[in-house]
């Protein structure tokens, strides 16, 4: 059982949770889109700008060196957080989408040719579909889609059959943003590696909710965003095995990513800087470091426990409502619930819940092919974080009953 005192302590770290929306206390159930920021993260960013700010790398003055140290310390922190083997394997990006675009481009140029295949699943977010479609168009490779069951689970048998000699890359999400399905990525990575296929994992929905260990998973690449890890927007992480990062070309050119530049020929910087062109989001990286400290302090095991209790409680309560249909009933699920209210448009439901101070997401959740699979235009999605409470779920359920009576 969740100790309510612990939840209150956690809630106190998040100033936005005291906000009122339309005169009602905010209930924030849109954590899969982005979660809120604790004071510790806000303070780290403010302090950095107020006291330590300047541009980093190559500066001889004190502030530049201080900033460089802070920035590079976060790289070590990320390395430990996901248990990567080397700091050179941690590349800072703008976010998950940026990381996936980098990989589609740089892996595509190196490994894809006409007739090759890239495998993704029906569950993917548009950001793990469109970059691959774009590079397939350029290279003449084709995108193949791993089917899922009605419950929203990847069909692993079908996946095994799809792993033929033409497949060069498999790119799947760790956790589905729309349904919450936790995919069996460790098994899928192992199966791909048996055939020497490169594996890319979109970890956007995973990092704030469960422990992620690169040595255990053995993914070749793993990408995520800071803003879904209680950190700031506009910064993310790309983990890649060193031997692959060495082999693939840079994605963007500019300052910081070079060794020597002449008009005839430019040589590139060492890892990880080869992939970090231009002045990076320094304050964002500092914020990410504070977010990782924060998550470590609470402990991902505790977070997982709180969230799984919230998920179980909300699922039971929603299942008891005769006018609600749930989508995504995988055995392994993160704290994300997609549903529809019978005979009501998700937009109406979402708008009226907002009137009660309850923030949920409605629509296709950037997974239109998944909506096509279920033959629905969209769902209402409630997604939880460790600062949410059982009382909030009760108010949400009461809100839904009221909404149903209005429509």
């Amino acid at each position: 059982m969740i100790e309510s005192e612990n939840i209150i302590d956690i809630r106190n770290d998040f100033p936005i949770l005291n906000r009122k929306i339309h005169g009602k206390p905010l209930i924030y159930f849109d954590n899969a889109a982005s979660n809120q920021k604790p004071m510790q993260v806000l303070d780290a960013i403010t302090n950095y700008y107020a006291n330590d700010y300047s541009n980093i790398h190559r500066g001889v003055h004190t502030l530049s060196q201080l900033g460089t140290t802070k920035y590079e310390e976060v790289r070590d922190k990320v390395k430990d957080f996901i248990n990567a083997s080397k700091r050179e394997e941690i590349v800072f990006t703008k976010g998950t989408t940026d990381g996936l675009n980098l990989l589609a481009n740089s892996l595509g140029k190196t490994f894809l040719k006409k007739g090759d295949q890239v495998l993704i699943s029906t569950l993917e977010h548009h950001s793990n579909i469109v970059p691959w479609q774009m590079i397939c168009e350029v290279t003449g490779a084709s995108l193949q889609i791993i089917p899922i069951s009605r419950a929203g689970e990847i069909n692993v048998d079908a996946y095994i059959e799809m792993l033929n000699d033409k497949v060069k890359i498999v790119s799947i999400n760790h956790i589905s943003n729309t349904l919450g399905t936790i995919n069996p990525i460790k098994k899928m990575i192992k199966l791909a590696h048996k055939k020497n296929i490169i594996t890319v994992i979109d970890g956007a929905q995973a990092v704030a909710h469960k422990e992620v260990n690169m040595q255990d998973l053995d993914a070749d690449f793993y990408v995520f965003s800071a803003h879904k890890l209680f950190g700031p927007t506009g910064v993310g992480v790309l983990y890649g095995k060193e031997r692959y990062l060495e082999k693939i070309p840079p994605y963007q050119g500019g300052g910081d990513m070079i060794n020597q530049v002449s008009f005839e020929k430019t040589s590139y910087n060492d890892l990880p800087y080869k992939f970090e062109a231009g002045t990076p989001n320094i304050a964002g990286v500092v914020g990410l470091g504070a977010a990782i400290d924060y998550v470590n302090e609470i402990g991902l095991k505790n977070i997982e426990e709180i969230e799984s209790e919230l998920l179980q409680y909300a699922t039971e309560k929603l299942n008891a409502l005769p006018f609600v249909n749930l989508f995504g009933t995988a055995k392994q699920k993160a704290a994300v619930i997609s549903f529809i209210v019978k005979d009501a448009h998700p937009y109406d439901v979402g708008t009226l819940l907002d009137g009660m101070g309850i923030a949920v997401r409605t629509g296709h959740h950037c997974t239109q092919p998944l909506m096509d699979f279920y033959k629905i235009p969209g769902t209402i999605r409630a997604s939880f974080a460790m600062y949410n409470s059982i009382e909030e779920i009760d108010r949400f359920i009461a809100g839904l009953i009221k909404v149903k009576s209005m429509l």
Partner: protein
Amino acid sequence: MAKMDSIEKEIIEDFELFDEWMEKYEYLIDLGKDLPKMDEDLKTDRNIVKGCQSRVWLHSSLEKDKVLFTADSDALITKGIVSLLVRALSGRTANEILNHPLGFIEKIGLKEHLSPNRANGLVSMVKKMKAYALIHAS
């Protein structure tokens, strides 16, 4: 223009009855439910309004010099909003429609409550109605 203003005034007065956010939306839902049914044949791709989270259809026809609008949506709140636009603009000449400032939208406190998504939808609806008027004017 005077006639237009009186319709706008009416709408504004209707909304002044409500203090509570929820009441306003209940009223919009009722308006949506009351909107006359749109002929299914008119729900074509040509009549669809882009930029809304819900689907919205708008159709226009010309009767003498007056432009008549019919509309529908698969979401009730959206239907209520489009019904207000139909009420304000239907039965006017093309020129009247083109010059209509539609100031009531802001006055009834809807704009501030609509998400950017939704606000874009509203803007798209108005744009579509004015585009129809332009066709009828020429």
